[in-house]
């Protein structure tokens, strides 16, 4: 269930956020009859309650069903702690990697003209269009014992699959588009004039990037990082394929939730799920706040 919640956070590009017009005044000709409006609002509320609020409530209810002490006992179980630690570590690695790659890719795409740009933009979206399970399998094919580099890695005693590197790689791959896609439309809209101004005033490339480009996109970067982090912590499919489910070693939180659930340890399972649910809620709130700032960054430069 928490996985569904995580999925519901699935990335929404800033440009896809519609520019909502304020509601029409009651006497406006575009306004619908009152009963239609009430009906539609009631329908939307009912739908949201059943599909979003109810599952969320169930998660917390189940987690706390045997009392608060059982809840915290479940969370302080060594296996749970190990999963939390691994999840945080993997998220930290993949968010940092994608931050660097995402900013560089967005910079290249938005500020420079080169051939093959369209192909690059399409490639960046690839992880979104491929099923996470397939993404995981790709890494098995590359790094597995029968894979391309498997024998070489084995002979050098390097463990990628069923270990931290594999999980981090799979997570980074799946979450790659978030930062880049948050920044490309923003940077494209801002154009290159400020950079040109900086260059003509004698700034070097690095000075231009750190003093002009980066401050202009800081909220967009945070937005991308936030969504990237949420997805990295919640990723199930790709990680499930490459992790090997070694208890206390290569289980991330989402994997542990499933394992515990299948073993009928509902309190432990939902306790960890509740952490992921809280992450989702915090992400949602932060996302809403960031979107306001990004709108400021998007404000046209002149009238």
């Amino acid at each position, binding site marked *: 269930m928490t996985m569904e919640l995580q999925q519901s956070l699935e990335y929404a590009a800033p440009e896809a956020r519609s520019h909502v017009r304020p509601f029409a005044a009651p006497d406006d000709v575009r306004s619908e009859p009152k009963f239609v409006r009430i009906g539609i609002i009631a329908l939307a509320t009912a739908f949201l309650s059943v599909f979003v609020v109810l599952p969320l409530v169930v998660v917390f209810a189940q987690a706390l069903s045997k009392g608060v002490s059982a809840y915290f006992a479940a969370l302080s179980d060594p296996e749970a702690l190990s999963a939390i630690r691994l999840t945080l570590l993997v998220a930290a690695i993949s968010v940092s990697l994608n931050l660097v790659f995402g900013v560089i890719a967005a910079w290249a795409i938005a500020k420079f003209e080169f051939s093959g740009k369209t192909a690059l933009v399409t490639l960046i979206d690839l992880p979104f269009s491929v099923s996470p399970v397939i993404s995981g399998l790709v890494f098995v094919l590359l790094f597995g014992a029968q894979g391309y580099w498997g024998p070489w890695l084995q002979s050098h005693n390097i463990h990628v699959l069923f270990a931290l590197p594999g999980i981090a790689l799979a997570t980074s791959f799946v979450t790659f588009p978030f930062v880049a896609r948050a920044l490309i439309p923003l940077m494209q809209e801002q154009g290159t*004039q*400020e950079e*040109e*101004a*900086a*260059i*003509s*005033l*004698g*700034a*070097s490339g690095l*000075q231009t990037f750190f*003093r*002009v480009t980066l*401050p*202009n996109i800081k909220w967009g970067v945070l937005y991308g990082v936030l969504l990237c982090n949420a997805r990295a912590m919640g990723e199930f499919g790709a990680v499930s394929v490459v992790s090997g489910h070694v208890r206390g070693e290569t289980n991330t939180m989402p994997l542990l939730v499933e394992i515990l659930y299948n073993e009928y340890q509902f309190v432990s399972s939902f306790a960890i799920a509740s952490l992921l649910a809280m992450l989702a809620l915090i992400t949602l709130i932060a996302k809403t706040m960031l979107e306001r700032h990004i709108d400021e960054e998007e*404000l046209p*430069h*002149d*009238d």
Partner: protein
Amino acid sequence: MTIEVKNLVKKFGAFAALDGVDLKIGNGELLALLGPSGSGKTTLLRIIAGLDWPDLGEVSFDGENALVRGAGERQVGFVFQHYALFRHMTVFENVAFGLRVQPRSIRKDDASIRARVKELLDLVQLDWLAGRYPSQLSGGQRQRIALARALAIAPRILLLDEPFGALDAKVRKELRQWLRSLHQEINVTSIFVTHDQEEALEVANRVVVMDKGRIEQIGTPGDVYDNPATAFVHGFIGESIVLPVNVSDGRVRLGDKALKIAAEGASSGASKLFVRRHDMQVGPAGSGSLDGSVRQVRSFGPIQRAVVALCGGEIIEIDAPRDRELQAGEIVGLEPRRYRIFAA
């Protein structure tokens, strides 16, 4: 600082933005690059600034090849059409930017930077805006801050891309005057791009008229207005009446009617007669080479603008002084006082 441009060619795909441009600019000039959009004027400006590179040709500053230097090394102040102020910096920091990014070896200390910025903000008369952000300024204020920022690096050349393009008519007029007096004060070789002929004629010492990547004419404002070198220049600068005429044996014919004007060396064949609206002398019927009936008259200020249908069917607009009020329906005689004939 003198600038010399030789045989500049710049292509964007199949489109030639610059198609062999030669230009010499003297020290301390205030030069206008005038032309319609797509004439290559902005491309020329960007190449001089080092923001674009030509496919062919040379650019030199004081006889020294400028193309080997990057934009940051040319000491060129560039004012962008939409100002390109750094939106996350205050006005003060915007102006200080060029001083703060200098290499450590030549960078001034903070106090001197502050003093210099203050001086520049005083120069553009906006020192009271130092703490504001660009989004809190009006268009005219942004324009002047952009200029102060460009001047901060003590540029040897000042380049302005459509400096008044995004402003309303009144602010535009004020800023024109201000730019001219500022140029007199700082006397830096300056080039500005405009598509507005009035602006070019009013502000610049010399005007370069461009079309389709080529220079059509270079001259003083008086020159390009009074002695347009080509049909394009005549049509682009000032409002012109254009009539299709035929030149043969030194005589000019409109349809089958011979005009009294001399061909003035125009070669034989189909040609175009260009007359400024106010250079068409209006008199009683039969007094000139052409007769026409007045369709409509509007009077404003010192002139009356009349729409006149010639007997050949051509409809023209003329500006006449108001010493004799014209009436709609009246037949008048017309005679070009000053005119030019260009091959069609």
